[in-house]
């Protein structure tokens, strides 16, 4: 049971944003299904084994990947492990406070984690070194630097880019001993490119990639994850208002189109 800071928005702001959107317009002149400018840099942190800095509009997130050798989970003894963690740094927003992850941070990392895991982004079986004993564990740390709305999509995109940027040392087994060759770096075994699209329900419409201002007035949020063939791999509704089945099916349709375009920029 987590207490939330209350964010009070003037009724007039809410109305003006909603009226615009009901007319098919947005405060920053985007189309309802249009992303803000996206910038993506990889290899930005030398000490990380993979890294990415992603900006969607003014939202800015840095992701670093680190590998270490660990024991596999008992129920998946032949699989490597992916750990996704996020920090909503107090630098990123006056509403973020220092301390252990709150429910927003937990939701962010868990939804991104589900997208990557259920989307089958990494071939975890190839990260096994000795079955049941030693596997590679990949840590993804999502460091939120500047919060201007739509953290989910930025984090998922940045994580995918960081994974694609990651190189880990080769690990081989000789006479039962694990030999790590730090000279021989290999890419992570990537099977899929799963991505998220997030929509805000404002007024009667769904808008893609909500800005902070839009998030503050939205009634509900729906995030959809899809893989390359258009299958849905993750979904998460948020917010205190309901959605209809039609809205959800529409969100899936737009997500397919938009992630196809995003994915092209990743190669």
């Amino acid at each position, binding site marked *: *049971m987590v207490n939330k800071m209350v964010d009070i928005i003037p009724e007039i702001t809410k109305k003006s944003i909603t009226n615009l959107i009901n007319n098919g317009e947005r405060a920053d002149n985007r189309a309802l299904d249009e992303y803000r400018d996206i910038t993506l840099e990889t290899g930005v942190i030398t000490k990380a084994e993979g890294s990415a800095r992603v900006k969607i509009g003014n939202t800015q997130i840095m992701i670093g990947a680190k590998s270490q050798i660990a024991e596999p989970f008992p129920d998946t003894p032949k699989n490597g492990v992916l750990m996704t963690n996020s920090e909503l740094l107090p630098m990123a927003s006056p509403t973020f406070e220092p301390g252990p992850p709150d429910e927003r941070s937990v*939701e962010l990392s868990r939804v991104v984690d589900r997208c990557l895991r259920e989307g089958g982004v990494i071939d975890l079986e190839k990260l096994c070194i000795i079955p049941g004993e030693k596997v590679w564990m990949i840590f993804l740390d999502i460091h939120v630097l500047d919060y201007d709305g739509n953290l989910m999509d930025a984090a998922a995109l940045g994580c995918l880019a960081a994974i694609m940027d990651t190189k880990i040392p080769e690990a081989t087994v000789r006479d039962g001993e694990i030999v790590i060759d730090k000279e021989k770096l290999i890419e992570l075994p990537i099977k899929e490119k799963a991505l998220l699209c997030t929509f805000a329900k404002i007024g009667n419409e769904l808008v893609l990639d909500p800005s902070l201002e839009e998030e503050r007035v939205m009634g509900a949020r729906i995030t959809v994850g899809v*893989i390359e063939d258009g299958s*849905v*791999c993750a*979904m998460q509704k948020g917010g205190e208002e309901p*959605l209809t*089945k039609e809205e959800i099916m529409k969100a899936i349709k737009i997500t397919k189109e938009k992630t196809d375009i995003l994915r092209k920029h990743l190669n």
Partner: protein
Amino acid sequence: MIIIITLGKKEGSVKRADGRAFDELRPIKIEAGVLERADGSAYLEFGGNKVLVAVYGPREFHIRRFQKPDQAVVRCRYNMAPFSVDDRKRPGPDRRSVEISKITSEALAPAVFLEKYPRSTIDVFIEVLEAEGGTRCAGITAASVAMADAGIPMRDMVVACAAGKADDNVVLDLSEKEDKEGQADLPVAVMPRTGEITLIQMDGNLSSEEFEKALDLALEGCKKISEIQKDALKTRYGE
């Protein structure tokens, strides 16, 4: 006071590991008003799941800066008893329960006339006493009954149910085994009067067509469970 419903099998279609038809729910029973101290409460058994819910409120939110000036706040705490799962679970919240607590609050809030109780909190405590796949839906379903038992004015009684994909079939209400080994899980909560969706999550792999089929199946399941919720209240309060 206790209703036991084993929903009969329909078509001779797909047979599942536990013998259920693809659109068949596990047996459910719900009992309202099972605790003394809480303002409202409900106990639910759903297959092997055993869930107890207590509701307190609307009551004053004692931390000023978390109050909402124009409405009440619904705060849920989803918690698993240490003995509810195969390997003892360490007490206290983990990341999974923090997330479920959040989305459960959001699943219940749309049904409540929150604006009637400014600066207040409605606290919903969901205890999973035994878990066998589908506890978040079981918790939401029981929580609605407990909120009604507490006399909280609601525009509808939220009900939840999952569908998913197992053994390449789209099926209703995954069992623990189907959840673990299955290909997709889609928990859904709705306000049955309007069919509006207050919770939806998904993980796994579903084509659009499968997704829509699973969603329809889940919505159908919700309708059935909704009747059992109502019966539980009738049993407690009469028609």
